[in-house]
């Protein structure tokens, strides 16, 4: 997905912003599109873009602003980078906030009266709580930029999904699927993401020991494949 724009329908509109630099290959896209698909099935018009595409040119930034102005609901899906949002996503949020606060010359086009925003955040660590500063940042962005906060879905063990479609990730993601169903139903109803959906999303996909064992083994296997296993702990700047 690079940039998809809304058509001219009268339907309520949902815009997905994908904050992962891995774009099409990312777990953020998988989770964001899974929710977007449910919103579309529920009668909303859907569009989406990656943050990287939005920042690629001035023209793309205008398209992002236009889509954000028209959206009734923004869904921001991203991975945890250094305990918060990836840098390009921070940049995009600053651009959107500045424009909505009138700091930038172009003011938002008249869009829906109340615009809502929700976040999907996932990290490679087992503990969902490691995502909490990022959720707080998204909530504060909503307040500063004049969006109504519609809640968040946060999960750990994102490495277990690894960019695969949820239907190919097996039974371990059944709670994730259920959480997305519940969140979509609430959002379509004009409600916040229910606490029960957030709790389901945050459930561990497998025991921590198994996740870390598989993660460590997978890293060694890939390092071996690339011929760097002996150098994996190298200190080039020591």
């Amino acid at each position, binding site marked *: 997905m690079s940039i998809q724009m809304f058509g001219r329908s009268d339907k309520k509109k949902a815009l997905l912003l994908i904050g*992962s*630099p*891995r774009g099409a290959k*990312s777990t953020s896209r998988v989770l964001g599109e899974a929710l977007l698909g449910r919103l579309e099935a529920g009668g909303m018009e859907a569009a989406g873009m990656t943050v*990287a595409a939005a920042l690629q040119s001035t023209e793309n930034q205008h398209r992002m602003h236009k889509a954000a102005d028209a959206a009734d609901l923004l869904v921001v899906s991203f*991975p945890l*980078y*250094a*305990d*918060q*949002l*990836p*840098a*390009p996503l*921070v*940049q995009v*949020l*600053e651009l959107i*906030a500045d424009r909505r606060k009138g700091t930038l010359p172009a003011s938002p086009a008249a869009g829906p009266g109340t615009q809502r925003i929700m976040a999907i955040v996932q990290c490679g*660590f*087992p*503990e969902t709580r*490691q995502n*909490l*500063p*990022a959720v*707080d*940042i*998204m909530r*504060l*962005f909503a*307040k*500063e930029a004049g969006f109504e906060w519609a809640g968040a879905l946060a999960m750990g063990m994102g490495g277990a999904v690894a960019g695969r479609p949820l239907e190919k990730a097996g039974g371990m993601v059944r709670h994730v699927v259920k959480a997305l169903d519940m969140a979509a139903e609430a959002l379509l109803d004009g409600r916040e993401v229910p606490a029960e959906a957030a709790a389901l999303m945050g459930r561990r996909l497998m025991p*921590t020991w198994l996740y*870390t064992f598989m*993660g*460590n083994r997978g*890293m060694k296997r*890939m*390092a071996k494949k*690339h011929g*760097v296993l002996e*150098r*994996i*702990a*190298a*200190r*080039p*700047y*020591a």
Partner: protein
Amino acid sequence: MNVVILNGGPGDARGAVCQSIAESVADESRRRGWSVTVFDLDQMAIKPCRGCFACWLKHPGTCAIQDGQESVLRATAAADLQVWITPVAFGGYGPALKRSLDRLIPSILPFFIRVGGEVHHPQRYERRRRFLALGTLPAPDAEAERIFHGLVRRNALNFGNASAGSAVLEERTAKAAMDGRIKEMFESLEEQG
């Protein structure tokens, strides 16, 4: 003592405040006889992390993107103290500092270990990390400050349970008050060892 200052101030009035803080930090460090390296990140055109993990799995410890971040990686690997300076963006770090921090991934190892009851990555370099994070806001904002301090605590865990301190300064803080606050933070960090 090697001090590395990562100044994430942008090229506007907020950046001028960050610059002033960076100068205060550098002055205080030199007064103590410490060596100082300053990176004005916004002027370095550091590209964002691509999430390719080549720094773990293809050429361990070095980034696939060749730009100014390489000198930041080299300096931070040898630093006893890092000082991060940034305008506070929704409680977090601004884009210039964040771009550089995202690309410190080569400084950690891909494996999982337990730190403070949670799973984190081990550090690639043995040198124990210490850092101060200094944020600026145009006016007091309790919520933004709470998030900022919480974020720094999480970063400290992910930096191998590093000693860390954080402060949020109002942009209009007088120079003398700013100098005093920075001196206090240095003393507190020294007490932590």
